[in-house]
């Protein structure tokens, strides 16, 4: 508990000092915009943003770019705009946000390299560019879309509350620049804040604070209309397609599916054909997994991505898929050497492969991407393996009468999964999910239809008439197209932006 006086107005906020009276015509007002007292145990710094004062001048945004020498297209602080009411009772609101230095920062939890830390002394969420490999996973994780990828560096960056300035007793650049004194640094007691944050951390134009417990306190103007809406509400743009991830996820799922199917068939058969097919699937998996670091900003440091296996699904994906690759390779080698007890190794590879698919799908269940954060993602990824894996080994000549039926069942499952997902998105009350549905049903409508046709033709019709090669080609095209749509149609959670802007797609 803090020993500082607690005011009635803000039971949980301790302001360092009130505005100092200035007899000399207010020539240099004593700053009360940053705390002048040290933090106690259980406290951290946070931003206070006063929406009633902000005039939308964007001084903070320019000052931030200058402070951090960021290129003009990178904003660690952004000013967004909202509008409500009916002329002349129009309400224009502005939102200036940097990082919210959350109590439970999802950027940090997700980061595979532990580049993020929550500073023990100040509670500031820090990002270490030297440790970062530029996987951009933090951007997906952050519900406020705060971290920004810097193309010229190959790493992300974000607001660090100018901790270097605070340490010297100076105001952060945004606080210093704001002509309305709308931005302030305060001290918050974390335990008290956890009880009451919903009232003060939520505001129009901001995603819910529930995901990560944002520490930013927002003061709203009085007479706020209920219909205040982001000025960029109607501007929904597709996200980056991430082609290397499209290929990597689909092909590793194919590989696991193919290996598992081949291994199961080898248990029932004396022939070595399944083993050949399984090995082929493994090679596809190893190749596709091998190219995945290419999407990183710093591929040479991809190995760091296993550091955070305790918390990050991305680390876990890498650990389990590497394990799958290693054990499946061992299985293949042992098999060729005709050494017994290979089934234990095969079972291990199967288990690790399934873990890998699960981890891959779980890593997309991020707070910042609501359309991904559904069970449909897990089902989709598993069924991709279930459709493509058996078809792949069938192409290589391994089949049983049951195989086309399994493939057809999986493909029908995939079809229904897609349809259900679309209906769920459409019916959702969340803006981002609706907007994803909007993208799928407008910009991408033709591709969605094609994707569904391909899964039916390649996964159901052709296998049942035993046209395995054609079936495989069409089904693979369908799954790749589906994964492309998965990436481009997701609408990130974001803070309100201006009428013009869209945050950098990630």
């Amino acid at each position, binding site marked *: 508990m803090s020993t500082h006086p607690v005011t009635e107005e803000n039971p949980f906020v301790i302001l360092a000092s009130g505005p100092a009276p200035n007899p000399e015509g207010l020539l240099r007002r004593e700053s009360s915009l940053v705390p002048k007292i040290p933090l106690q145990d259980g406290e951290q710094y946070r931003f206070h943003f006063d929406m009633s004062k902000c005039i939308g001048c964007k001084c903070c*945004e320019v000052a931030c770019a200058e402070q951090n020498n960021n290129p003009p297209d990178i904003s660690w602080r952004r000013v967004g705009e909202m509008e409500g009411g009916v002329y002349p009772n129009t309400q224009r609101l502005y939102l200036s946000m940097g990082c919210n230095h959350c109590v439970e920062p999802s950027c940090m939890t997700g980061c595979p390299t532990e580049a993020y830390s929550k500073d023990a002394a100040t509670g500031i969420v820090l990002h270490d560019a030297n440790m970062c490999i530029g996987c951009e996973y933090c951007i997906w994780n952050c519900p406020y879309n705060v971290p920004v990828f810097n193309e010229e560096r190959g790493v992300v960056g974000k607001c660090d509350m100018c901790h270097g300035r605070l340490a010297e007793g100076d105001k952060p650049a945004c606080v210093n620049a704001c002509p309305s004194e709308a931005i302030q640094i305060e001290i918050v007691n974390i335990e008290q804040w956890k009880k009451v944050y919903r009232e003060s951390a939520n505001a129009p134009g901001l995603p819910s604070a529930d995901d990560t417990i944002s520490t930013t306190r927002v003061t709203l103007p009085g007479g706020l209309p209920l219909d205040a809406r982001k000025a960029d509400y109607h501007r929904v743009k597709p996200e980056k397609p991430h082609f290397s991830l499209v290929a990597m996820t689909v092909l590793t799922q194919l590989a696991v599916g193919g290996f598992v199917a081949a291994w199961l068939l080898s248990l029932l058969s004396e022939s070595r054909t399944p083993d050949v097919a399984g090995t082929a699937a493994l090679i596809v998996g190893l190749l596709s997994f091998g190219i995945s670091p290419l999407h990183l900003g710093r591929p040479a440091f991809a190995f760091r991505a296993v550091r955070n296996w305790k918390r990050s699904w991305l680390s876990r994906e890498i650990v389990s898929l590497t394990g799958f690759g290693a054990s499946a390779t061992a299985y293949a080698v042992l098999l060729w050497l005709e050494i017994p007890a290979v089934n234990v190794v095969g079972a291990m590879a199967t288990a690790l492969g399934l873990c890998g698919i699960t981890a891959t799908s779980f890593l997309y269940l991020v707070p910042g991407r609501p359309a991904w954060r559904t069970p449909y993602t897990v089902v989709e990824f598993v069924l991709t393996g279930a459709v493509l894996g058996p078809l792949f080994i069938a192409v290589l000549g391994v089949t049983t009468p049951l195989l086309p039926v399994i493939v057809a069942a999986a493909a029908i499952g995939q079809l229904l999964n897609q349809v259900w997902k679309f209906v769920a998105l459409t019916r959702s009350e969340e803006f981002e999910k609706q907007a994803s549905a909007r993208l799928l049903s407008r910009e991408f409508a033709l591709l969605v239809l094609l994707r569904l046709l391909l899964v039916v033709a390649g996964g159901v019709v052709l296998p049942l008439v035993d046209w395995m090669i054609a079936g495989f080609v069409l089904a693979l095209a369908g799954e790749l197209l589906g994964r492309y749509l998965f990436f481009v149609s997701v609408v990130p959670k974001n803070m309100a932006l201006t009428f013009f802007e869209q945050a950098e797609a990630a």
Partner: protein
Amino acid sequence: MKLSRLLGFDILGEKYAYGHDPEIGYTAAEKIPDKWVPTTCGYCSVGCGMYVGVKDGRAVSVRGNDDHPVNRGKLCPKGLAEHHTLDTDARARDPLLRRGGRLERVGWGEALDEMVSRFRGVQQKYGPRALGVVGTGQLVTEEFYALGKLVQLGFGTNNYDGNTTLCMASAVSGYKGSFGSDGPPGAYDDLEQADVVFLIGANIADNHPILCYRLEQNPRTKLIVADPRVSKTARLADLYLPLKPRSDLALLNGIAHILIHAGLIDRDYIDAHTTGFAELETHLEKYTPERVAAVTGLSEELIYRTALLYGRAKAPFIGWTMGVNHSTKGAETVNAICNLALLTGTIGRPGASPFSITGQCNAMGTRETGFTSGLPGYRKFDDAADREDLARLWNVSPDELPTERGLAYPDIVEACLKGDIKALWVIATNPIVSFPNVDVLRQAFENLDFLVVQDGYHPTPTTEIADLVLPAAIWGEKEGTYTNSERRVSKVNKAVDPPGEAKSDFDIFLAGAEKRGVRERLYPGWSGPKDAFEEWRRVSKGRLCDYSGLSYELLEQRHGVQWPFTEEDAARLNGEPPATSRLYADGQFQAENGKAKLWAVEWEPFSEQPNDSFPFILNTGRTVEHWHTRTKTKEVKILERLAPTAWLEMNPRDARRLSLQPHDRVRVVSPRSHVDDLELRITEIVAPGQVFMPFHYVERNSNVLTQSAFDPLSREPNYKQCAVRVERATLGR
């Protein structure tokens, strides 16, 4: 891209390193300068004090001056990135002369020879007044002073005006009419002292953000904002008046009517210090609240509340900008504003002021010294005593001084069109973007024998059509002074060298005078801006804008001082900061009898009313990110990103009727021309029947739509209202 970057070994650690600057503390290492040069911001007339950080001869950063009485360390987003305006590829580097249709590099000697001989040729053939000069509000006062002498005495033409006529001429004419002289009476301190602040046609949140900062320091005040558009400033208001376009004059008369009827006027003051009350009282009888409500679209209750708030205030402040000035009734509307201040007898009290918030950084400097709409020192062309006074100070014959104002800017354009002006010298302005109904101006310029454009940037839409381009130093590259809206004179200093062969405008004027053979007569013994300043101190002595007590040293030391500032004021200082200065606190005005004039001015509807073919009223204005014709701010990448393109605001009710969706591309058509491919913003910021677009963007220029309609008194254009229709774009995506 380098392999070490592609693989991730190089993350540009040096570029993104931090360091410690003794002045600003922890910051990006590349932004830490070798030295900080004090100066004054070169954008708007708020006149913020700042420092430019210079490293290895390049401007790398800026910071607000904490000790400056105007901004106390704050800057707007343009000011915060101002160093980026200096070092860009778009700067003019060499004199360029058109030969065989192409602009070719020439030396300064050849360029100025060509200019002087071509001017002489035209003047010999068509008469001295066949030369016109269009200046700016962007130069330093010393340059305006030098230029005025050069044009009027050296080149012998009085067809000299500036783009300030597109900006605050109505304020000048209005002040002259009401108080007998130009010169805003108040101070920014009034924003902090006023108990009522009434802003009319002034969107300070977008255009003068630092004044919002000053207003923010005053929690006691009631803010009233009158604007047809719910501007960023309107949303700050305690009382917002969404009046119909150009009904401001009716509203002001209506307020005066209520003040008189409610007995909220100061009869003693009126009797002692004004003339014209009886006529005004009779005139205002017809401005009943009912009628004013019908004209303005405001409820009677709102009009009463406004009038009573204003009338009962101890220190009411009225500020205005282009909503008032950009009008064919601009000067008279300013008179109606001044009427309110005079009727209540509050003028000169701390907090109370009819305050013209000016546009450009040194529009005030050209008003004081400029020799365009008046003689230097607010002297009058038609006053023989003023002319004799000036002739004596300059040691010239009074016959050399013109007895009347030459053509104003729009009339210069008209004269070019008619062939009366054959050579034109355009200085630090970009009329191809900023002049209304710009196609007419284009034709006018095509008619010229010789067009000289002197600018810091090339190409601009105007330098591109010039016969001779003179490259000029800009803010940050030269020395002098600016006067801001509150009459505060601040020092401007050179931080870096101009690019290439560019010279300061001051040096160009002196070199031009040399070529013309008038340098010693006009500028005896001058070598730098300080010589001009010293002469100007003597010339302004005893005038309302008295500089005689000012010196460069004092301005540096005090970070700006308001005029009038006499030698006695300087002697009294005794180490203390100068007190805030307000004009007319003693009730003595600049008119002959010392009395201010109350004007009976009549509201009229604007001329181009919407009709079936052009059903919308187009309003034009600014956005905080950009400055005027975007010559400078287009070069500042972060500002360009924040406001990359022009847009059109339309009310949802109109959009529904036209079946338009948000972000649709539209085409705006006026009776004159059209703008295509504008991004549509459907918003309740504008009223049904009105649309708004910003005027900064040459690519989608609002001024191909606006009218050739000018205030008969001030000659200021009517930018704010014209009739248009909106269609789906034919170009674009």
